[in-house]
C-alpha cells in the first residue's frame, strides 16, 4: 500500500475515532484531539489550500456540535491547516524534535485561535483553556502522534 493511501486512511481513521470517542462514548478530554492530529498529519502532505479546506470541513463538523461559538472551530482549524502546510516550505527535515514541536505548537495554536474566536462570555479563562488545557492537550497530541508516525515509518523521511 502506498504511503499516500496509508496517510489518508490514518486521517480518516483518526477523524472517525475522534467523533466516536468524544461524541459517541463521551470521553471528553480523556481522549486526545485526534481531529487536530489528523489535520496536522495531512497538512504535511498536501498544499496549503487543501490543508485549509480540510481544516474548514473538520472545523464545521466540530462547530455543529459545539453550538455556542459557531465558527470558532472552523477558523481555528482552517488557520491551523494552512500554517501546518506552510511548515513544509520552512522545515524540510522530519527530525524527532521537529515533529514533537510541530504537533505541540500546532495543537496549541489551534486552542489559541479557538479561544480568540469564541465569544468573551462563552470562552473559558485564558489561563485554563490556552495555557493549561491547551499545553496539556498539545503534549497529549504529540505523545500520541509522534510514536504513530514512527510506527508507520514516516519519521526520518527527508524532503527531496
Amino acid at each position, binding site marked *: 500500500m502506498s504511503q499516500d493511501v496509508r496517510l489518508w486512511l490514518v486521517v480518516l481513521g483518526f477523524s472517525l475515532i475522534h*467523533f*466516536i470517542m*468524544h*461524541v*459517541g*462514548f*463521551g*470521553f*471528553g478530554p480523556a481522549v486526545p484531539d485526534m481531529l487536530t492530529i489528523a489535520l496536522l498529519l495531512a497538512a504535511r502532505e498536501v*498544499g*496549503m*489550500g*487543501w*490543508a*485549509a*479546506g480540510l*481544516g*474548514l470541513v473538520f*472545523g*464545521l*463538523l*466540530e*462547530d*455543529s*456540535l*459545539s*453550538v*455556542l*461559538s*459557531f*465558527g*470558532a*472551530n*472552523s*477558523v481555528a*482549524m*482552517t*488557520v491551523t491547516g*494552512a500554517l501546518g*502546510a506552510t511548515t513544509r516550505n520552512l522545515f524540510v527535515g522530519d527530525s524527532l524534535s521537529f515533529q514533537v514541536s510541530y504537533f505541540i505548537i500546532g495543537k496549541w495554536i489551534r486552542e489559541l485561535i*479557538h479561544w480568540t*474566536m*469564541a465569544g468573551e*462570555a*462563552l470562552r*473559558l*479563562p485564558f*489561563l*485554563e*483553556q490556552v495555557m*493549561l488545557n491547551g499545553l496539556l492537550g498539545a503534549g497529549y497530541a504529540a505523545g500520541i502522534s509522534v510514536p504513530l508516525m514512527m510506527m508507520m515509518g514516516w519519521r526520518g523521511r527527508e524532503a527531496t
Partner: protein
Amino acid sequence: MAYGPEPKHAEGRRQGLLAISFLLLALVTAYIPAATQQSIAWSMRVTVLRPFIATQQWMVAAKDNAADVGVLRAQLDSLSATVSSQAGLLDENQTLRDLLDLAERGETSFRPATVLRSGIPGSESMFFLNLGSRDGIENGAPVVDRHGLVGRILEVRQEISVGMDWTHPDFRASAMLQDGGTYGIVENRRGAFREEDRLVLNGTAYYETAPDNTLVLTSGLGGVFPRGIPIGRIAGIEEVQGQWRKAYRLQPMVEPGSVTHVIVFTGIVPNNLDRLWSADSLRILEKEVVEGREP
C-alpha cells in the same frame, strides 16, 4: 522565448489563494446570522454526525440496562408507595369535584428525556435531548431532574432539541428563598477555572439575611421558570455592595455534568411546581449526600 512563471510558483500561488478563500469562508461562518448557523449545524447533525449521536444514545441506554437492579427496585418501591398513598386522595378529590360540579383540572404534562452531550470544546454548557417538537417540546421549556433545576430548552427540532444548563453564562432564573421572604436573580458566575464556576443569588436587599443552607427555589416571576423548582442552597455571602445589596453563593441541587436523564415540561406548565419536590424527598436527598451515597 517568453519566460512564464515556474510551475512550482504557480501552484504555490494557487494554493495560497485557495487557503485565503477557505479562511474567508470560515470567517463568514463565524459571523453569519445565528439562524443560518443553526441550519448548517442541524444539517450536519442529522447527516454526517448522526451515527455518532446515535452511538451516544445507545451507550446511555446500555448504561441504564446495566444499572443496579437493587437501586431500581428500591426506587420503584418508593414510587409505588407514594402512588398508592395518593390513590385515596385522588378519589376523594374527584368525588368533591363532582359534587361541586367543577371542571377537570389541567394535567401537568411532562416527558422524560435522555441527555446527550457532545464532549466538544465550546459545548460545555449545552446538551441535546432525544425529544423534539413531535413530542410536544417547546422553546424555553424548563428542564428538571429529581433534584431540581437543570436548565431550559433553547431550540427545538422535530426529533431532537438543544438545551442549556445553569452553567451557561446567559443563564438567569428569578428566585426566592423557600419561605418566600427574599427574592433575587440566580445567575452563573465564572471563576478563574471552570471548577470555580458557581451559582449566585444576586440582587437581594442588604437588610434581608439568608441563613446558610436555606433552600432557594424559582419564584415564577418573569414567566421563564414556574414557581417552586429547587435551584440550590445558600452557602455563604458572595459579595456585598455598599449597604444596599447582597449576593449569596449557592450550593447547586443539580450537577449538570452528571445528569443523564431529565424531565421536560410540555404544553402549559403549571404556575407552582413545589409539590414535585416535597420537603421529605429533599431531606432524604440531603441524608444521602451527607452519607456520601449516590442519591
